[in-house]
């Protein structure tokens, strides 16, 4: 199993199937990233990981084409650049990328304001597989619309 972060997932490519999309997972807990990656790769997505907002920004900027990321799934309470700042940054830099928040901190005020600001969903950990996949599918749809 891959331990390093930042490498794009290759499960879909190896399996020869067409990737459903590329998801950037931002969380400071490697195990959280790993289970999310497994859920998503099994479903057919490519996954990139970042351990905080700063690295996430680096990952996207380093890519030859930032549009290759379709959805960003991020925590909002992490060390260094926190998720809220990262979300603002993502929204400014990559307005076409859909955003989903996945956090252990259920705050209705933050959730409401983020939803108003156009994030796709606000998921609270521990999240069930179905909820996660539904949110990602919805984000992909939104991504298609944004892309038109």
């Amino acid at each position: 199993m891959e331990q390093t972060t930042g490498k794009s997932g290759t499960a879909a490519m190896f399996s020869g199937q067409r990737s459903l999309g590329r998801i950037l997972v931002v969380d400071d807990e490697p195990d959280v990233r790993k289970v999310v990656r497994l859920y998503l790769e099994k479903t057919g997505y490519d996954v990139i990981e970042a351990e905080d907002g700063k690295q996430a920004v680096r990952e996207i900027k380093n890519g030859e084409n930032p549009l290759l990321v379709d959805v960003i799934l991020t925590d909002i309470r992490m060390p260094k650049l926190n998720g809220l700042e990262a979300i603002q940054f993502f929204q400014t830099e990559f307005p076409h990328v859909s955003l989903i928040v996945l956090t252990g901190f259920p705050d209705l005020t933050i959730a409401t304001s983020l939803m108003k600001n156009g994030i796709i969903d606000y998921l609270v950990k521990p999240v069930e597989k179905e909820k996660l996949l539904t949110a990602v599918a919805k984000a992909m749809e939104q991504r298609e619309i944004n892309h038109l």
Partner: protein
Amino acid sequence: MTTAPENLQQDKTDISQMLKHLEQHHALILQAAGEGIFGLDLDGRHTFVNPAAAKMLGYEPEELIGQPSHSLWHHTKADGTPYPKEQCPNYRAYKDGQVHRGEDEVFWRKDGSSFPAEFTSTPIRDAKGALVGAVVVFQDITYRRQCEKTITEFRRHTDMILQAAGEGIFGLDLEGNHTFVNPAANRLLGYEPGELFGKPSRITWHHTRADGSPYPAEECPIYRAYKDGLVHQGEDEVFWKKDGTSFPARYTSTPIWDNEGTLAGAVVTFQDITEKKRMAAQLLEEAKLAEVTRVLGDIGHDIKNMLMPVLSGADLLKDELDEQFPTLIREKAKGAEASYANSLDLIRMIVTNARRIQDRVREIADAVKGVTSPPHFTPCRTGDIVDGVLDTLRTYAAEKGISLLTNGLDALPVIDADERRLFNAFYNLINNAIPEVPRGGSVTVGGSPGQRPDTVELTVADTGRGMPPEVRERLFTTQAISTKKEGTGLGTKIVKDAIDLHHGHITVESEEGRGTIFHLVLPITQIASSPTKPGNT
């Protein structure tokens, strides 16, 4: 040899010289005197006037000689009314031959102004003892009056300050006896005015320390002020009231010195700081609560982060096993079937316990929210909220063989409620009841109109074991006892907080072995004075 007439002549010359000398001497005294001095004849006309008298009245001395005194400078009283001559002490002196004094009178100047004067009028008699007039000696007492007025004013002010001061103020002499006590001091210590006067402080209100031990005078800062002449302060001491109770006081003891610069005593000002202490304690409590809330929030966040890989990992592991084991079993691998069953059981165990941890964290988070977030009232159907709770708990109840029932909820009116909090309240009441009910029993949520027309009454009744009295009594306090193995004891606090927030009340009826009934009374409408901002629940 001198002849008799010559001698006589010499004597005459000597006497007249002596007299002249005396006259000059008297004149000098009269001239130099600071007081005004008049001589008056029997008609009250000036026979002599010294320069001080003329100056005070605004005349030249010769202007006054031969003029009537009363009509010139004593015609009118201080209040502006005429002054009849017969009442005048000056006049009376040369009428009745007695010495007369005047203290509270005014003399009038040439320019029509007046000044307060104090005077003595002494009768003059001739050699035969017949009255021939009077001598009036007077002083302008304007300055003295001003001084007196200033002093009176100053006294009045000081008195007013002492009377009005919210702080208690005493004066103590060198023996520690009270020399004055202001009303606030009497009120704070529970004494009548005058009661403390002359009594020593050390036996009335400063005899014992807060811990009950005696307070020796030598150690007392109040006593030290009038021994060492320095200002002393006390922060953390108690003063004792007449009724034997005490209060925490803050005070300052300032030494008093007399005119010669020797210590005369001390002035003590003090405050009852009960309220200040209470406020400080409350602020500390609130700060602690805020800190606990923050820490609990952080812990909750961490735990949820940690639960995510546990639950999702177990789920993914199950997928892996579901993929591999059927093949192994089909291929009749040794022990595969048993191993598959064991693995599934272990995964179930992991998931069940992780979910329980999750429930506890949610419970803590709800309790924290109860103290931190404002209420958000919307019109709610109680039946719908209870149905939601029962749906959530039905699987759990079924596992335990218990039925969840409702009764009369549909007939209830719509009430103003914070839906999330009311949901949590019912969730906790029912969730706590389930493990207490033996298999085959039930938990029933009932509804009926309240005794007051603007309320509804809800009941949560179980057929469980009931509660021992000590658990029941402490149920809705922060000292609630949890009888569950994993209980945080927060469940009942969530319930109580939610009901309090709805301005309702909750009571419990329980008997060991016969079950428990919670009675909740909730108002139908919530007062408009608790508005909530949208998105701020």
